[in-house]
């Protein structure tokens, strides 16, 4: 790693001021597992690291409207074990429980997970100077793209968004509280993550360099049922090939409203309006699940080596819906 200064502020305000260094780069560090790895690979070489663990809110509290306010400093293990989160937003707990490994869940944070950078192996290698690192191309289309996007492939970047939590956050309609030099603002999770274009390709979200994500606010869930299904190649420590969070508002056994969000298939958590349209007004059963899954992938545009992800995505959507229907979809275990 390139040598860096180290700051350890204890308030949001001090974090923001520590992040402002003109002409040089300062980055916030929470759990640090993603950042330290990137620094070791010279993907990023900041001049200053700002440890935000002692400044960020680490609590999960109920809000007056029946929702939850989750501090960005909450360790993922604490999210997994929180009874309120499990009761109100079970897909968040499902996703959080599958993140990484115990070591990662112990020290990784909600904010860190949401803001982590892509796993794309071109991005993560110093040898490849891609768009995200100020270069002039993306190496995946002509190269090894078996783990890249099958939606949103207009370019310039074909990464899949790496955050597990982002998908249920979008599905449950979360908003993020952000603090910067001009005070605070909130951004809907669905608007926080950005599809890449030539102007914004170096980032995956709207967070500015001198801003910090401080809270995830989840609205009262209402009378919904949710399902979450992940498909992984390896059961131990691995990134999902595709996953889905489905949140349904029911009217008896008829689906009144639906939110279907796909993970690991696009540069952002991918809201599938195709799948949602195939669900609304239908009876919740396996046939509906199958049809919605088909709809979810009909507009997929895979790259040269990741066509197999279309089938896997279809399965993830189908089984998430089957979960909600109480149909107990299969999950392979060694």
């Amino acid at each position, binding site marked *: *790693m*390139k*040598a860096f200064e180290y700051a350890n502020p204890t308030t949001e305000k001090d974090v923001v001021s520590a992040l402002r260094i003109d002409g040089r780069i300062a980055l916030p560090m929470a759990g640090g597992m993603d950042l330290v790895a990137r620094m070791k690979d010279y993907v990023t070489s900041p001049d200053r690291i700002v440890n935000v663990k002692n400044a960020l809110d680490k609590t999960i509290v109920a809000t007056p409207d029946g929702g939850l306010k989750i501090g960005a400093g909450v360790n993922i293990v604490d999210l997994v074990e929180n009874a309120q989160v499990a009761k109100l937003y079970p897909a968040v707990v499902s996703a959080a429980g599958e993140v990484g490994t115990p070591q990662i869940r112990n020290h990784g944070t909600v904010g860190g997970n949401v803001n982590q950078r892509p*796993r794309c*192996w*071109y991005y993560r*290698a110093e*040898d*490849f100077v891609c768009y995200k690192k100020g270069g002039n191309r993306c*190496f995946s289309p*002509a*190269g*090894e793209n*078996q*783990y890249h996007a099958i939606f949103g492939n207009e370019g310039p970047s074909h990464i899949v968004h790496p955050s597990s939590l982002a998908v249920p956050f979008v599905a449950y309609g979360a908003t993020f509280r952000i603090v910067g030099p001009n005070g605070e603002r909130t951004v809907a999770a669905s608007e926080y993550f950005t599809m890449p274009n030539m102007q914004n390709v170096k980032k995956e979200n709207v967070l500015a360099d001198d801003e910090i994500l401080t809270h995830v606010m989840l609205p009262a869930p209402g009378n919904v049922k949710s399902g979450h299904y992940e*498909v*992984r*190649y*390896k*059961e*131990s*420590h*691995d990134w999902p*090939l595709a996953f889905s969070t489905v949140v349904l508002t029911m009217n008896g056994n008829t689906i009144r409203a639906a939110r279907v969000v796909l993970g690991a298939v696009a540069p952002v958590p991918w809201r599938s309006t195709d799948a949602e349209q195939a669900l609304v007004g239908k009876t919740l059963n396996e046939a509906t699940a199958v049809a919605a899954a088909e709809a979810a992938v009909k507009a997929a545009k895979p790259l040269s*080596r*990741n*066509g*197999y992800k279309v*089938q*896997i995505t*279809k*399965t993830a959507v*189908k089984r998430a819906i089957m979960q909600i229907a109480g149909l107990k979809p*299969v999950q*392979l*275990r*060694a």
Partner: protein
Amino acid sequence: MAKAQEGRGAQPPAASGPTANAKKYAWPPKPAVLSTRVKRLDGPDKVTGKAKYSFDINRPGMIYGKVVRSPHPHARVTAIDLNAAKALPGVRAAIVWKEPGTPAAECKYQGDPVAAIAADTEELAEDAARLVKVTYDVMEHVANVEQAMENGAPAWAAGTANTRKGNAEENGNLDDGFKQAAHVVEQTYATHVITHVCMETHGCVCEWDGDKLTAWVTTQGVHGTKDGFAQGLKIPATNVRVITQYMGGGFGSKFGPDAQGLICARLAKEAGKPVKLFLDRKEEHLDSGNRPSAYAKIKAGVSADGKLTAFDAQSWGTGGAGANSNFPLPYIYNFPNRRRVHTDVFINAGQQRAMRAPGHPQGCFLTEILMDELADRVRMDPVEFRIKNLPEANLSQAWGEYFRMGAKAFGWEKRHATGDPRPGPIKNGFGVSAHRWGGGGRGGRAHCDIASDGSVVMKVGTQDLGTGTRTMVAMLTAETLGLPVSAVTPEIGDTNYPVCGASGGSTTAASISPAIRIAAGKARDAVFAKVAPELGASADDLVAENGRVFVKTNASKGMTWKDACRRLGAEPVSVDGEWEDGLSSTGTSGVQFTEVDVDIETGIVKVKRILTVQDCGLILSRLTAESQVYGGIVGSLNFALFEDRILDRVTGHMVNPNMESYLLAGLSDVPKIDIMLVDSPEQRGRGVIGIGEPPTVSTASAIANAVRNATGVTIRSLPLHPHRILAAIEEQKSGGTL
């Protein structure tokens, strides 16, 4: 660059039949210690962190080395400027490794070493390495075998062909063979490149004392590595001492100093300080060896009654930059009429090195999947089909018996025909495979010291890779002297101890155990000679058992071991033993059965259980032998499902030089494993053979066959990634080949 070899070790002249010593010190028919489960002696040091691996050696004044490597798969070094690196405070040495303007200046793979520096801290060493300015003339590269074999492909190395075709290996008459065939299968099979991924990366600590070099090296061969340093540095071998008390895995990749060892020694000389130089994980993937890939286009015939008649194969593969890729083919089964031609293909990637059972996992897979396809043609059960086509049975080729034992224990009779007929997305299947290995080994030497206080030290210039060698040395000595294992001090891992071969080819046990047995036997006899007169007997009448020395026919006439040793007085026993023929042999066989579940809606494979029947001659240390089998099987499971050295096809760079996207099984990925070690009097009578490699050969093949049984589709290449499973299912649905 290590060659793929089945047996390693020093080569004394071939012996014929058991020697006098081998008869005198024959293995006991009812051992007190051998073949039992004795806890690994170095377990406590390893679990407490006290065990010092080469990576842990911190010497006074030690600094850190770092290698500068070519980022390009193919390039010529035209200039190296060390000035900026040398100017960094804390840098103590800087050397050029590839001299510009020489033939050596052509870098032939990403990671090829070019220069090196040494600095006070690891962090500074990395800073300094990044300040070394290397100018490259980038050349065209080839990133995979397809590119290398294209017309007009660039040369992997200047003025060198990309392929090297071997001679045909032939037997019988192919035309006749195919005439006799009622069914013919014609397919292409393939296995991929994987790297060793030793948990402790390659490297060493080098320290000079005048012109004498001590090197703590993570190596599978202390003596061979010592010679390597001597030759590479052009110094007398007697000036070099190599120490490896503990090492974190080798799997065939650690047999010499390699470039980094010689670089480390040179840096230490220039800096006048000890230098620690270890590869990081990326360097380890790029430049410490790999298992070559293997492809074969095979046409094979079987008669109506299930006898193999013909086998015609063109095979190829890549061992990287200029290295070979051969493997046995066909594997095990009897094809009376056969021809096989192999072509080595060279690409700009790291060179292969022997990897646990070199060649066999490849030959096995390329044959075993074909066997199931042929069995289906004649509608025979895969086990019966295999038994029908085995070579003649003997103690080193016992597959017929093992198939039956294993099938019964596994519940093979419950297997359904190809393609699980039950509804639902999870398909279950069974698979089987067979393997062989040589093992054996010769040329070990040992030295036994017995002091007048009864203490026993057995010195052997061998090494323990985690195989349990240290424990085996103590057990062998204890057995021979009639002592508890705790009364023996094994000393290994140092070139100050008698010369032994490297630990490769599964030859350690067979090469050192005769030497130890004989050394301990002679030492015991020396003690007997001292006390025999006092006991009123001749030395031949004495035995050593349960910590006593006594007359065979009158147990009350004896004394404790300690009392017996006291008689040594000022003349401790100090004797040597050498490997002699008659206590070891060569040739093992084994079979494996697997059960898998395949989710046909995702392509995910889960192995549910694995069973193996394996022989290894006389089992010396049962506990550690079992661990070898577990470990070999898990290694092959990784080969089947997970690990994969992936090169970007455009740039030739490795895209996963880490342990995150180079996938390895974790606890949740490992199924139930049952081991049946064959411990018959006949196998015991064969003496010591070895077990390190055989268990890792055929698991992948059995898993692939189980996937075929489950899904009804044949996956003919590894790894069994979901994309292959789903593609094969898709192809079958649209009427493609079975």
